[in-house]
């Protein structure tokens, strides 16, 4: 169990993400049900949370706690651990032809530290009166003043800050390892220009994560100091909460937002860029065509990485920033759509005119492009202060970020799972179940999140646990539709879970290269031996994009370790 093998660690990360994602999904089910039918008791919930949902009907505070835990679990323990740490750990060393990570022990430590962080967060469910309720962004002063701020803001919020601080350490260790491995352990012939797109994406993601988490960590420390040591970094003076004058003075809630979003915006690219890499590697395989413009792709990724550090203020247009700063942050936010749009065009250009092989993996890769574009377009509206001021507090934003970083990243994870499962476990997954899973999920997420744009434009505020205002009454049927769609789409994920377990036990034996792909992981056995290549390291002679060529044996592709 305490293995230093990167393949085991990668699978451990993915298992953790699987537990986390179903936890987070159940939380969203509870929230959605409450939004559709606020007065109807949820069977069993009263027993699980007697304080927050006596009789099965949750209090507004408990709703916010579910929202906080849903966001935190999903962003940190699913969207960061699965596509980046999970797939990256398993595949990056193999794809560059290395026997393991540069620092196997540090690698093992990063996983176990992540697990500790997860357990500390989950403990917030059981310690104190309820989990914290200040959102995955933990906005101060709500998150900083302690238990006066409401249920869950005592121990729960402290555990939240400790958990995320620990998580930062794990990500720093992981990022160090990814960078060193990519730069130093490439096998002979694997020049930087020949690295597969997914490796590039994980590498660039590691560079982003290295600095982003290094800033979140001191922010968490300051938050903990505010909570337990009486400092006032994020708490202004004269604050009265629950009729109690807070013994703090001089701090600034905006400081927390600056520190948090300086991390937070790069973090959304930590979640999505591995998906970029996974899709860019999968589409050419099933289109049987080389990726259009791989160097442009890499340049775009690098541009996104750089720009991701310059846009954090667009989360703060409503926070009382100087309007000139808002313009300053708006411009790079619009500029960052250019490399993102170019990447999208590269994907479309890659599949243009191709005879696509439709598998679960390629369908999810195509679905990734679809939801990323759908979510990206609403970004244009939110990037501009004039429109964002109206939309920021509404479901429009919920729709935007769920599409563009949540669902899109999840589709990247699904595509990667269907694609690499044979390599990881030596067995094939069921394509029939995979396609059912895809179509139900694809239609489902559009049913859930597309109407939310409309809700937002209609002025439906977010973060409310129930909509009692008159002007929101006509929107309730739409909320119920979304809730039903969410329950069905969530249930469709059980198909995926069943497929995972069944294929793991009884799937047909996987050949070494079932998809006829070119990268190094497909030239070793399925699953790969402990040292990845059975004692000899491959020598690379080709780039990763040799499709639609005259290969050996009449094949239409040349593998990276093959000679022409």
């Amino acid at each position, binding site marked *: 169990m305490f293995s230093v093998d990167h393949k085991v660690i990668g699978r451990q990360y993915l298992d953790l993400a699987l537990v986390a994602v179903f936890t987070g999904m159940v939380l969203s089910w509870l929230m959605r049900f409450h939004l559709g039918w606020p007065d109807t008791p949820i069977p069993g919930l009263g027993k699980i949370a007697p304080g927050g949902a006596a009789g099965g009907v949750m209090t507004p505070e408990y709703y916010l706690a579910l929202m906080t835990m849903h966001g935190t679990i999903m962003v940190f323990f699913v969207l960061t651990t699965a596509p980046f740490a999970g797939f990256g750990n398993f595949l990056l060393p193999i794809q560059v032809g290395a026997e393991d990570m540069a620092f196997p022990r540090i690698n093992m430590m990063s996983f176990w530290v992540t697990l500790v962080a997860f357990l500390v967060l989950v403990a917030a469910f059981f310690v104190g009166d309820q989990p914290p309720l200040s959102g995955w962004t933990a906005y101060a002063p709500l998150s900083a003043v302690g238990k006066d701020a409401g249920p869950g803001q005592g121990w729960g919020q402290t555990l939240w800050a400790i958990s995320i601080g620990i998580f930062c350490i794990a990500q720093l260790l992981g990022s*160090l*390892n990814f960078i060193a491995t990519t730069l*130093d352990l490439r096998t002979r012939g694997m020049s930087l220009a020949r690295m597969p797109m997914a490796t590039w994406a994980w590498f660039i993601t590691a560079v982003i994560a290295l600095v982003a988490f290094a800033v979140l960590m001191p922010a968490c420390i300051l938050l903990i100091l505010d909570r337990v040591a009486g*400092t006032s970094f994020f708490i202004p003076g004269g604050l009265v909460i629950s009729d109690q004058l807070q013994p703090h003075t001089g701090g600034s809630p905006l400081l927390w937002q600056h520190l948090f979003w300086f991390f937070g915006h790069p973090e959304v690219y930590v979640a999505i860029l591995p998906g970029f890499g996974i899709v860019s590697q999968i589409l050419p395989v099933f289109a049987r065509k080389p990726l259009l413009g791989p160097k442009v792709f890499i340049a775009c990724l690098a541009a996104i990485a750089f720009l991701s550090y310059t846009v954090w203020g667009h989360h703060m247009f409503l926070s009382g920033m100087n309007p000139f700063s808002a313009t300053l942050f708006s411009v790079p936010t619009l500029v960052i759509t250019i490399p993102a749009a170019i990447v999208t065009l590269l994907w479309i250009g890659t599949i243009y005119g191709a005879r696509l092989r439709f598998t679960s993996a390629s369908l999810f890769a195509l679905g990734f492009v679809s939801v990323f574009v759908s979510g990206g377009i609403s970004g244009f509206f939110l990037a501009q202060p004039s429109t964002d001021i109206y939309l920021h507090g509404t479901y429009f934003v919920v729709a935007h970020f769920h599409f563009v970083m949540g669902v899109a990243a999840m589709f990247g994870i699904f595509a990667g799972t269907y694609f690499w499962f044979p390599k990881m476990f030596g067995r094939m997954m069921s394509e029939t179940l995979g396609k059912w899973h895809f179509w139900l999920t694809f239609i489902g997420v559009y049913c859930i999140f597309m109407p939310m744009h409309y809700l937002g434009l209609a002025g439906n505020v977010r973060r409310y646990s129930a909509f009692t205002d008159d002007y929101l009454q006509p929107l309730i049927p739409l909320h119920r539709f979304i809730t039903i769609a969410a329950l069905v789409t969530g249930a469709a994920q059980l198909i995926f879970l069943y497929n995972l377990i069944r294929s793991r036990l009884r799937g047909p034996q996987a050949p070494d290269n079932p998809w006829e792909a070119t990268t190094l992981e497909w030239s070793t056995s399925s699953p790969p031996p402990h040292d990845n290549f059975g004692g000899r390291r491959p020598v690379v002679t080709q780039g990763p994009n040799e499709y639609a060529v005259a290969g050996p044996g009449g094949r239409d592709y040349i593998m990276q370790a093959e000679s022409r």
Partner: protein
Amino acid sequence: MVEPGVAAADAHAAGSEPSPFGVTSRKLAIWMFIVADAATFAALLFAYGYVRVANPDWTRPFAFWPSIANAIVMTVILLTSSLTMIGAVLAAQAGRSRDALRWLVATMGLGTLFAGLHLREWSSMIGAGWRLFRNPLGGTPLVGATFFGVTGLHLLHVVSGVAVIGVIALGYRRGRFDAGHLETTGLYWHFVDLVWMFVFPLIYLLNLR
């Protein structure tokens, strides 16, 4: 200059592409750590600057004597310890392991002296009523919070640095570590020194009464 660590790494990773920076993975990793740690300190110093500007009742706690004078002495000690660290690395690279050990011990001694002077300063400030949440001069309590927060994190780096140098020195004496290890430890130590070159003007000199 050929680095002693590189040859060993090449033997380990025979059949690899050369590293684009021509350094060992260990050295690359310590540079990456320094990048991340620099971001951490930058965030803290940003927070310090932010609350300082936001608080018109900021009080400057330090008189030249003894506070700034003490800080100058600490600065000289820490800078000197960087010099002795360089001495250790150069001696180790030249194969003079006894000299290298002496330099390492000197570095640890200077680091400990720095920490001692720092803690003495802390305790006299605590004695004067400074806390994370209290300013005995009557201005914003964030003066104490930022002072103890920033210098505390730096002090943590110094103390753990001394401990790491101790471990490395023991391993080096037993032949388990080589000049490459001393060099990467040195990089860390110089970085701790460099951070102080930001802390000293921003936290001390700008707060001269």
